[in-house]
Structures are given as structure tokens and as C-alpha cells.
């Protein structure tokens, strides 16, 4: 019998399994994927470029729009970078509010992901259930911030809104509902025979590879890496809490690094977030929620600031970095966002290789890709209607030149 020829199945940039555009090219023999390649960067919004002509307080609003789900992630990381440069001390109460809202974001993000993963497996009932359950977290977020997406609660030097005593009761009721539901959610996702058989042993990412590819967040923890920014470098209120990174051992006895383990980590992180919020609510210190009420004073402090800093936050998807450099002017001279998805997307070719075509959607979804977080500026000459494509060497050279300019 003649050897079967490889067959190329393109996925994306527009595809029903993808909620955002990315191009994945799969070479398949029969049902087995023998190699995979991906091209991110199908959309360009130029958010970093926009930020460089705005002042830090305006950029905080902009950072909220980087991603539709990580409302707090980017603004918190950016605010922390600016606070370090301008030497602004965040009040303790604001740190607690920041932690609470960040953990609520983790709950809703993981539930959203759980729904998407179930949909990719063809299990729409579970998808509807997960998204219906997620609504409660969204309602709680709306109660605290006034918004369901783009929360806009973070301000440089604290938070814009306090969590009042009256709100505690409603938030605790929401958390108690989640506690009751948690067992059901665990049973549906982790004990369902079809989900187990589809996810166990697929999309394997070993500990060594997870480390070598610098994966972050639940993707890394599912492979046994204990990296968790909240534990390793505590910030906000995390230092006051007793936290341990969630590993797949929370449910099973061993770490396999497969799709199933990534589900386990995310489901158990929901439970962990519920505990964190409860602890924060119980121990919230009194005091102001902003370093300075008047925006003009915050801006004046920023204008005096000089230097560079990296703001970090453990987002639902993993560590998110914001590099900011300021030189006593209105706007930062450099702002670079490295969203957690950046670190995680690169394992796709690795974990897709050898998988069955049917498992591609759930494996792709298992790293919880957020492609809008990875958007960058494209250099297009409108007059000549030409788009410049940089090679790796050119980009490295430009990066060196820019660093040199900034240090002068």
C-alpha cells in the first residue's frame, strides 16, 4: 500500500473554534497531526503606540481595553510599574480591594474558559451551565466596580471605589453559592467519562518543556511548575495570605501535564480564589483607598518621576508584565506589555504534534489563549500603501537602538 501523503488543514484566521483570529496550520496524516505551525498577530490595534501620547492616568483606562476579560490584570500591572517609578505608596485598604477584584476576575475568567473548553469538546450543555454560573461573578464585579467589563477600578495609587460594608453581604452570598456549586462543577468536568477520555493524555507538556518554553500560569502549573507570582513575589494583599500554588495533585495523585491537568488546575483555582476573597473581606483594614484623591496631584507626581520599572501581576492566564520608562514628561517614553498569552502560545506546535485532529480545539483552548492581549503595531506606510515586515534581526537591532536612546 502506498504511503499516505500528509494533508494540510488550515485553522483560522477565521474559524468557528477560534473566538479571536490566529492562523494555525496543521499537517495531518489521517487523523493524526504530524506537525503544527501558528501565526499570531492577525489583528493590530496599536494600543502601546496610543499610550505613548497619553499621560499615565489616561493610560490606565487604555490598559483596561487591552483585553476584554483581563480588566484588572493590565491596569494593575501598569499601575504598579508607575507607582514604583513615582514612588507612590498604595494604601493598605486599596491593596485588599485590588486583590478582591483580581480574584473575582480569576473566577470569571476560569469559568469563561471552562465554558469554551466544554464547547470545543462538543458539550454545549456544560458550556451553557458554566457561563450561567459565571454570571454571578460578573454581577459581583458589577456591584464592586460598576462595570461588567472594562472595570476601570484601578487608579495609580489605589482604587477608584471602595468596597462598603453593605456590599460584603452580597459578595459573601455570591461566594457561598459558588461553594455549593463547586462540587457540581468538579463532578461535571472532572468525572465525566467522555471529557476524561478526550482530555487525559492529550496535549502533553512535560515539566522540562514547560520550563524551557517559559510558560506561565495554569499552563505551567499543570506541568508541575510551582511558579505563582502571588506566592513567589507577594504584592497587594497576597503577602498577608497563606497561599500555595495549585497543582494537578490537588485532584489526582500525579502530574501528567496533559489537557485534563490544565482543567484540574483551573477548576481548583476557582476554589482558591473564593477562599482568598473571603479572607480579604474578613481582614480588610480601614483607611483610604487612594494615595491621593486629586488626579492633578497624581499627575504631578508622575511628571516628576524618572526611571523605569516592571509591573507584574499573576493574571488568570499567568504572569503579566508591563514595562514602563518615564523621563519627567507627561507621557511615558516607553511602554511594553507582555501578556501571559505571549509565553503560552509558543507551546502550541509542541503540544499539538501527535494529537488527533478531533482534539485540536480543546488542546488549543487548554492554554487559554487570549489573542487580543498579544496584539502589536504593524508599520504601514499609508501614502505608499505598503506594509513593512521586519525580520528578526531588524527587530533585535531596533530594540537595541531604542534601549540605547532611552539610556542616553
Amino acid at each position, binding site marked *: 500500500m502506498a504511503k499516505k501523503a500528509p*494533508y*494540510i*488543514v*488550515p485553522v483560522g484566521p477565521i*474559524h*468557528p*473554534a477560534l473566538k479571536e483570529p490566529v492562523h494555525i496550520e496543521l499537517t*495531518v496524516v*489521517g*487523523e493524526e497531526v504530524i506537525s503544527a505551525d501558528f501565526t499570531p498577530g492577525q489583528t493590530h490595534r496599536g494600543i502601546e503606540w496610543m499610550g505613548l501620547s497619553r499621560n499615565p492616568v489616561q493610560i490606565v483606562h487604555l490598559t483596561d481595553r487591552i483585553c476584554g476579560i483581563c480588566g484588572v490584570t493590565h491596569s494593575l500591572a501598569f499601575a504598579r510599574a508607575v507607582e514604583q517609578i513615582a514612588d507612590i505608596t498604595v494604601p493598605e485598604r486599596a491593596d485588599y480591594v485590588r486583590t478582591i477584584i483580581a480574584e473575582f476576575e480569576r473566577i470569571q475568567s476560569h469559568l469563561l474558559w471552562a465554558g469554551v473548553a*466544554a*464547547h*470545543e*469538546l*462538543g*458539550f*454545549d*450543555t*456544560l458550556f*451553557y*451551565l458554566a457561563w*450561567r454560573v459565571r454570571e454571578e461573578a460578573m454581577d459581583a464585579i458589577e456591584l464592586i466596580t460598576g462595570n461588567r467589563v472594562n472595570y476601570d477600578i484601578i487608579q495609580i495609587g489605589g482604587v477608584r471605589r471602595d468596597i462598603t460594608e453593605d456590599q460584603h453581604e452580597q459578595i459573601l452570598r455570591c461566594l457561598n453559592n459558588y461553594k455549593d456549586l463547586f462540587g457540581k462543577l468538579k463532578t461535571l468536568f472532572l468525572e*465525566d467519562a*467522555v*471529557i476524561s*477520555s*478526550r482530555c487525559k493524555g492529550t496535549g502533553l507538556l512535560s515539566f522540562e518543556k514547560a520550563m524551557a518554553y517559559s510558560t506561565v500560569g495554569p499552563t505551567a502549573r499543570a506541568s508541575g511548575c510551582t511558579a505563582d507570582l502571588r506566592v513567589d513575589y507577594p504584592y497587594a494583599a497576597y503577602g498577608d495570605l497563606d497561599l500555595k500554588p495549585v497543582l494537578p495533585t490537588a485532584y489526582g495523585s500525579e502530574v501528567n501535564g496533559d489537557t485534563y491537568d490544565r482543567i484540574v488546575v483551573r477548576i481548583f483555582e476557582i476554589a482558591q480564589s473564593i477562599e482568598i476573597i473571603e479572607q480579604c473581606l474578613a481582614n480588610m483594614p480601614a483607611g483610604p483607598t487612594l494615595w491621593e484623591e486629586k488626579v492633578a496631584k497624581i499627575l504631578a507626581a508622575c511628571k516628576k518621576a524618572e526611571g523605569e520599572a516592571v509591573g507584574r501581576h499573576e493574571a488568570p492566564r499567568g504572569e503579566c508584565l508591563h514595562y514602563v520608562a518615564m523621563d519627567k514628561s507627561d507621557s511615558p517614553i516607553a511602554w511594553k506589555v507582555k501578556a501571559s498569552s505571549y509565553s503560552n502560545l509558543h507551546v502550541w506546535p509542541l503540544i499539538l504534534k501527535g494529537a*488527533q*485532529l*478531533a*482534539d*485540536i*480545539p480543546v488542546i488549543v483552548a487548554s492554554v487559554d489563549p487570549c489573542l487580543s492581549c498579544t496584539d502589536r503595531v504593524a508599520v504601514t506606510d499609508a501614502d505608499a500603501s505598503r506594509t513593512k515586515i521586519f525580520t528578526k534581526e531588524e527587530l533585535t537591532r531596533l530594540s537595541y537602538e531604542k534601549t540605547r536612546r532611552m539610556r542616553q
Partner: protein
Amino acid sequence: MNVILAAIGGTIVLAILAIVFGLILSGIDRRIVARMQARIGPPLLQPFTDVRKLFAKQNIIPANAIPWLFNAMPIVALASAIAILMYLPFGSFAPILGELGDVILVLYLLIIPSLALVIGGFASGSPYATVGAQREMVSMIAYELPLAAAVIAIAWRLMAAGVADPFSMLTLMQTSAWDVVGPLGIVALLLLLVMLAWVTPGELSKIPFDSPEAETELAGGILVEYSGRNLGLFTLSQAVKTVAMAAFGIILLLPWNLSPFLGLTGVAAGVVDLIFFVLKVIFVAVVSVTVVRTMMARFRITQVMGLYWLVLGGLGAVAIILMMADAYLLGVI
């Protein structure tokens, strides 16, 4: 001449009834799934609106496609789905072409709509459709084994019981297998009931066996390039096939009529039996398609093969052995 005209007239009436009922059944299915998922769901008659819309839309033929084959397959699928119905008795109504074919013919006819989908998929020249068509072929091969085992077990037992012409659809409808078997045979028939309940969603490409059309990985698989009128015809053939498959299962395993219990005869008996039959079709479709597709995730194609060949094929073999043991114990062989 009159016989031919009657057959043509009967076919047209049957086709219209089957399409209307098939679409209503699909509406009921969507409605119940929505309720089970705590949604409201579309109106009951939404499938009619969908099909009307599809027929009004542009019919696009891809550049890579083989146009005549691509256009012919939806018609073949619908025609063969309606053809199945002409060999099936409904309630106490005898099939239109009952004397010209038997249960084996129906088994073959059931393959043709799927085969039309496969050929249409390959003819469309899309990589998704090609992968989908490969999967459809594999699942066709897979579910044929338990289906054939079920038919053979029942027909063989009826033959052993001395029923004349056990492969005829009319015989199967009139002589219930449950009446002729002993205790072991009842166990075998229960096994066959389970098997048929699992074959039905496979035959109809519904979750968990919808890998040929997997929306999330293949963007619609076989049907990805179909649009407008062609997609409308495939939708109709799917609706008719749902009726045919449920009716086929009922004739094999749930062939009771209501009129003998009520002591009715004539037209009244026919109407009551037909209504009862329709209710049974709805019941079977809801149990084996709607409920299953709500509570399960999609299988991989290898799992589909494993389930049909190893699990259900094994069950089929057990059922046949039980039937033989039953006949032996009752002393009929």
C-alpha cells in the same frame, strides 16, 4: 397504469408529510434541548423558517468543486431518504412499495443519504469537507455492524419461530418479536433496544457521533461548502432520515398498535394507529437523539469505532447467541 399513478401520488403525499413531520420533529428536538440547557430555544416552527431562508439564499459552488456531483448529491440524499419511507409501514398502513423490498433493502437505503454526504463532501474540494467525509465513511462502517446484528438477530428468531417471510417489513410490524421469545430472548431484545438507541444518533450524525460535521474542529465538516438550496436539501434529507431511522427502530423493536387494545377497526383504527406511531417516533427521537446529545461531549472518531465495533458489536453478538439459546431452550430448533 393506475397502480403507477397511485404509487407516484402516494410518494408525493408521503414525501410532503415526511418533510413536514421531520421538520417539526427537528423543532421539537431543538426546543427540548434548549429547555434542558435552561434556555428558551427557538419557536417550534423555526426549522421551516430556516429551510425557507436557505432556499432563498445564493447557492455557491466552490471553485475547486466538481459542480455536477456537488449539486446532484443533495437531491440524491433527499430522494433516498424519502425512498426509505416507501418501504416502511406506518401504524397499520402497509408500505407503498412493501412487496418490492424487505428489511435488507432498507438497511442499504439507509446508507445512501450518508454516502451522498460523503461524495458531496469530497466533491466540494475543501480540506475540512474531505476530513469530514473520511470520518463519515469510517462511522458508516462502524455503525453498520451493530445495526446489521440487530436486524439479523430479530429476523432469525422470527424465522426460528416459524414466521413466514421474516425479513418483510410488514411481517416485522405485524409480528412483534417480543411475543415469540422466551425469557432469554427478552434479555436479548432489551440489549438490541440499547444498541439501536446508540446506533440512531450515529446514523443521524448527532452528538456524540457528530465528528463528520464537528463544528468546532472542521467548521461544519462535510457541509462546510454547502449553502443555499443545496444546504436546504441536505437539511430536509436529514429531517426525513430522522423520521425514517426512528420509524425503522420502532418497526424492529416497538411494533405495537393501539387499535387491537381499543377494539377499533376500519378508518378509526388506521387514524389511531398512525397517531400512536407518530407519538412513538417522537418518543424514540427524543430519547435516543435529544437526550443523548444534551448530556454528552463529542467522541473522537477512534472512540466511535471502538464503541460501535467492540462494545455494541460485542453486545450484538451476545444478543444473537442469547436468541439462539432462547430458541434452543424453547425447543423450536
